[in-house]
């Protein structure tokens, strides 16, 4: 279907079903039960799942296929957000021109950065992209304040020109009148489900970008990118200039990040420089690796897992913990709560860092490899793993490059 083979079609269908049924899947607990805090079916959180999924899919096209580790991807996200908010300020609150401009500007930006950064590879490439992202961040904070509104962040004011704004136009972000914030709530017994227009718009975008990424992975172009990752030198010796291919991958990946940035602004018309900081770039890297770099579904899973855990862990503060462990004797409770409080609430980043380290050390292929291992252990995935997992196994167990000092 759609030029995909059977297995990829199945994958696309799984992703679509998961995304469309998101409001149900993410809300497994009745809204007044004690477990309701593990629900994640709020419109803005669900939007974030999807948007960061798009970002991670884009990052994966670069890192998963070519092996170039960019530490500056957040710059494209930030540029996308800024250009989208400028469209809101200049034209109207319609998100279509905003998103188109976000993608275009981010793509142009990544052509420039990619053209320069891709002259070097390995750690040098990572540092060059990091340098560019930090430059953008510092400039957005200081000199470019007229464009970026500095620390306050760029937002839409009532005295902005908004040339296309008709007398009856909506003042919130919309797609030809369809407001993004519109939410239909469905009350079913104890459960409450939210269906948000913005979320479904993001889902459509996610499915489009996911489909595109599957096509890229399976195309001759994708094969070329994998060859760059495996052995770039040999490719050069065969007389192939790899740089145009890597640059194309970089630009596609940058455009994906721009789209994600534009969508972020479309859901909430605000853009700040902290979106471009290098810790934000690090987060994308973490998402992709956690899910499984070089696999199709991995980045989406990784982005979902991180955003979900972030939301849940940050919510568990000391009071909640006191509540949970109230069955323990008082002194023991104090100690247990103290220990757990290091990892939850404000300590969420500690958990994230530990989780990330464990994945890198024990499971370099991320969640996808983990589930494959479990399947193999149970014995189900044996036949399946043979027929399908072959092509991807090399990506999960990259051959060790020789030690430099040896």
């Amino acid at each position, binding site marked *: 279907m759609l030029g995909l083979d059977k297995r990829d079609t199945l994958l696309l269908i799984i992703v679509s079903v998961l995304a469309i049924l998101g409001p149900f899947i993410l809300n497994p607990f009745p809204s007044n039960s004690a477990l309701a805090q593990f629900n994640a079916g709020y419109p803005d959180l669900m939007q974030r799942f999807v948007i960061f999924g798009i970002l991670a899919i884009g990052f994966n096209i670069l890192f998963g296929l070519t092996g170039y580790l960019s530490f500056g991807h957040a710059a494209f996200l930030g540029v996308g957000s800024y250009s989208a908010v400028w469209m809101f300020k200049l034209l109207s609150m319609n998100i279509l021109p905003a998103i188109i401009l976000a993608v275009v500007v981010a793509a142009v930006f990544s052509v420039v950065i990619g053209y320069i950064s891709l002259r070097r590879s390995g750690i040098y490439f990572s540092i060059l992209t990091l*340098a560019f992202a930090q430059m953008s961040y510092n400039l957005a904070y200081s000199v470019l304040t007229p464009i970026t509104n500095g620390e306050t962040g760029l937002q839409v004011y009532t005295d902005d020109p908004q040339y296309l704004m008709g007398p009856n136009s909506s003042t919130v972000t919309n797609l030809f009148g369809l407001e993004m914030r519109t939410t239909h709530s469905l009350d079913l017994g104890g459960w409450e489900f939210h269906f948000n227009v913005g979320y479904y718009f993001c889902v459509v975008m996610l499915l489009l970008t996911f489909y595109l990424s599957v096509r890229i992975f399976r195309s001759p172009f994708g094969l070329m990118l994998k060859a760059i990752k495996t052995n770039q*030198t040999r490719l050069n010796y065969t007389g192939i200039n790899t740089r145009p291919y890597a640059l194309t991958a970089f630009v596609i990946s940058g455009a994906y990040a721009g789209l994600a940035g534009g969508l972020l602004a479309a859901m909430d018309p605000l853009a700040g420089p902290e979106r471009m900081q290098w810790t934000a770039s690090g987060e994308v890297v973490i998402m992709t690796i956690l899910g499984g770099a070089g696999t199709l579904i991995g980045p989406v899973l990784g982005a979902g897992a991180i955003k979900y855990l972030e939301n849940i862990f940050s919510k568990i503060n000391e009071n909640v913990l006191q509540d949970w462990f109230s069955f323990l004797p008082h002194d023991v409770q104090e100690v247990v709560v103290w220990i757990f409080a290091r990892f939850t609430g404000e300590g969420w980043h500690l958990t994230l860092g530990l989780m990330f380290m464990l994945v890198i050390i024990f499971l370099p292929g991320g969640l996808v490899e983990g589930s494959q291992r479990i399947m193999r252990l149970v014995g189900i995935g044996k036949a399946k793993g043979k027929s399908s997992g072959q092509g991807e196994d090399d990506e999960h167990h990259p051959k060790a490059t020789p030690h430099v000092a040896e």
Partner: protein
Amino acid sequence: MDSILLQILNGLDKGSAYALIALGLTLIFGTLGVVNFAHGAIFMIGAFTAVTFSKLLSLSFITLDPEKKNFLGQPLEIKTAYVVDWFGPTVGNGLIDWAVPLSILFSIPIMLFVGYAMERGLIKHFYHRPHADQILVTFGLAIVLQEIIKSFFGANPIPTPAPEMFRGSIDLGVLVGFAENAIIYPYWRLIYFLFSALVIGGVFAFLQFTTFGMVVRAGMADRETVGLLGINIDRRFTIMFGIAAAVAGLAGVMYAPINSPNYHMGMDFLVLSFVVVVVGGMGSLAGAVAAGFLLGILESFASMNEIKSILPGIDQIIIYLIAIIILLTRPRGLMGRKGVMEE
């Protein structure tokens, strides 16, 4: 002329910090071939050993003074530090005042141990993994270390003053024949520069003039051959990792009075130090030191008002800009060796 000299001096303290961190990074890279993203976290831990030590010294007990009343009419509480109680007011208060310099002694063994534990516990397992994995795992470690510090010391910067006698400024201009007040420079920054020069000199002397250093240098040039000669080169490289951690830690300890330590100071310095290492040339110790000072001084020149009025915002990006230009024109950096990181 005097303003040029002033900017050079201003660049020295940041440059010293860059140089010390970059030196440690290069030592690790040159010996073990590992790209250590957690080196900034080590610098931060160093600064926090100074914080911890000065807090330990000023631990105090409370006594009530029945003679005097506070404004609520209750007996006045008097805090007495244990060290003051034990050694008398002169020595005790002196110790508290000199907490930062004294914590150097306290931090060296700690930092050596931190480095040793990191290498044996984690990095050892990553020698045969791709560079991307090394970057990622040390990046994760950096997050973990900084969050641990945050959960114990909080997110706010903790002021850690220098000893009383070094808090003022020195009028350097008068010494070299300029007008008065032309070049005012804080004592502690001068000390920081001298200290880092001492540490850098010490590391170079250690590598150049001791047998241990000779073996390490031989190992950096050809690890396999040195191993075949029956020398346990791995153990020496582990010790070098400890020394690199101690260098970064000392840089952090002495930096505490200049900038109150907070949990993300390491990350801020790390990004810049990597740029410094790349500009200096991967694997070149002298290059790392030279580039550290050079970039520190250039940064301080770029923040002059005269230059900012021509090129607004240049002070924010100068270091990155130079790194990009260097990488594109001299791919190996200023003093890079051939064959390092060129896969």
